[in-house]
């Protein structure tokens, strides 16, 4: 899949200019993280990938096809979008029904739906909870219910808007596994996150947004080494990375092992 944005601009009906000319190409299956302060325009940006929002200027091309050629419902076969707030998405009585809903809408065969149900409920660790009412779930479980209901539709691109929000360590692990599995299946994951630790652990491609523009776009090590630009967008690298930067390490490190390796290298010199 290839998502291409050509000087994409978006002005909300209220007059807020949320995107000010974004040029961007995302392709392949390498998971992508989008970061940036509140109100930077991350959600607005990704809502253009399946046409929930339409460009007010510029262009969005999905595999070369203009986004305006199809409705969001039609794009939903190719591009899945998990909303930030689970309550915006969940509306049926059981998780099972939530899971079946999307696939039925796009006319997925019964057989395939069954297969997907087994696979997704396992992946999201909701196998025992399929017949529970969403109201009886914890926030984390609700979130995975919404994630699962999108994966059920088997799209080629899956967008997560702040999946880590309000989650514990176990939830993050589950999510990590989902991102990895989807990548292995050849899907493209695009994730918005404020959790820098989660970002550096799971994503090598990082995009930084600031005030409606893309500030940085590239390999995570590259991105997190540009301290000055990051400051501009009010993003701070994970604590261990900052310690290394303060200590004057040349390499950008993301975890203790990397840190110690660099540390030992310096001692030897």
């Amino acid at each position: 899949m290839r998502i291409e944005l050509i000087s994409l601009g978006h002005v909300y009906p209220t007059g807020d200019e949320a995107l000010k000319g974004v040029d961007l190409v995302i392709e392949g299956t390498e998971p992508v993280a989008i970061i940036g302060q509140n109100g930077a325009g991350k959600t607005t940006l990704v809502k253009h990938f399946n046409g929930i929002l339409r460009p007010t200027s510029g262009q969005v091309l999905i595999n070369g096809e203009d986004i305006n050629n199809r409705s969001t419902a039609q794009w939903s076969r190719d591009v899945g979008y998990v909303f930030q707030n689970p309550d915006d998405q969940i509306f049926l009585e059981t998780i099972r029904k939530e899971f079946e809903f999307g696939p039925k809408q796009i006319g997925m065969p019964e057989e395939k739906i069954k297969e997907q149900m087994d696979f997704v409920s396992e992946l999201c660790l909701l196998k025992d909870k399929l017949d529970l009412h969403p109201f009886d779930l914890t926030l984390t479980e609700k979130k995975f219910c919404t994630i699962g209901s999108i994966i059920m539709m088997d799209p080629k691109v899956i967008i997560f808007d702040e999946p880590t929000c309000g989650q514990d360590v176990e939830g993050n692990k589950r999510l990590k596994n989902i991102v990895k599995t989807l990548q292995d299946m050849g899907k493209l994951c695009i994730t918005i996150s404020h959790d820098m630790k989660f970002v550096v652990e799971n994503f090598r491609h990082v995009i930084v947004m600031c005030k409606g523009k893309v500030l940085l776009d590239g390999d995570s090590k590259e991105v997190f080494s540009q301290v000055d630009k990051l400051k501009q967008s009010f993003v701070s690298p994970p604590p261990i990375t900052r310690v290394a930067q303060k200590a004057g390490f040349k390499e950008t490190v993301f975890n203790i092992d990397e840190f110690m390796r660099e540390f030992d290298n310096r001692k030897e010199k």
Partner: protein
Amino acid sequence: MAKAYNSYVKRDTFKENISPNVKIWPIFSYGLSAIIFPNIYLGLGLIVFLFILAFFSKLFKGFTKIMLGFGIPITLMLIFIHGFYGSKNETILYDFGPVQLGLEGVLHALKIVSSLLVFLGTFYIMNHTTYTGKLVASLTASGVNPKVGYLVLASLNVVPQMQRKLSVIQEAQTARGVETKGSLWHRFKVFVPLLGPVVLSSLTDAQERGMTLETRGFGIKNVKQTHYVEVFYTKTDKIIKYMLIGFFIVTLIITILMRLSVI
């Protein structure tokens, strides 16, 4: 991202500068007048007047939409019921064969519709030219219990809030393959299952908001509370209020005289 929790948008028109307290009066003054008046002309006149008012309050488009959107279907329905089956029908307007359209029924239907529209229209204009915070502040200032004030505020907020919620949920639906465009019947089918969750979540939201208010000392006793929103009650306000009351009284007198066949 949610901006104003209200249908109020500042438009700098004269209506906005009238005290909110006074703006409740037209609803009763105009509405009741339209109801008691023996024929439909007063109601029709008031509707025309409201359209003019809406125009000068820069609300013309939304106002027209609401009035027609509510008025046309309700008119058709009531004319159908009263026109064909009204018990007072004597003069036949048109003979459809099995049923006859009666003049008295049609007039009766129009009377009901015009009164309803006067209520609706006055309420719409008031609601859209008043910052609800100010309305409630002025109510409490004139002695209404703050809790009742909150109740008014909460109920006025519920509708725009539900609309917002509904549009977000609909977005989420399209992202799951639901086509929200298409025939009216299709859209209706898609819309109905969403109502439950929307209403339910608005109610829990309101309850939660009530609880947070409580924790911030809203219901506290034996303390004189101060107000954040200030309201002014001017001479113009007073004059307008008396004019509105006067209007109702004059209508009442004319009505009684007409009923007594004096005029």
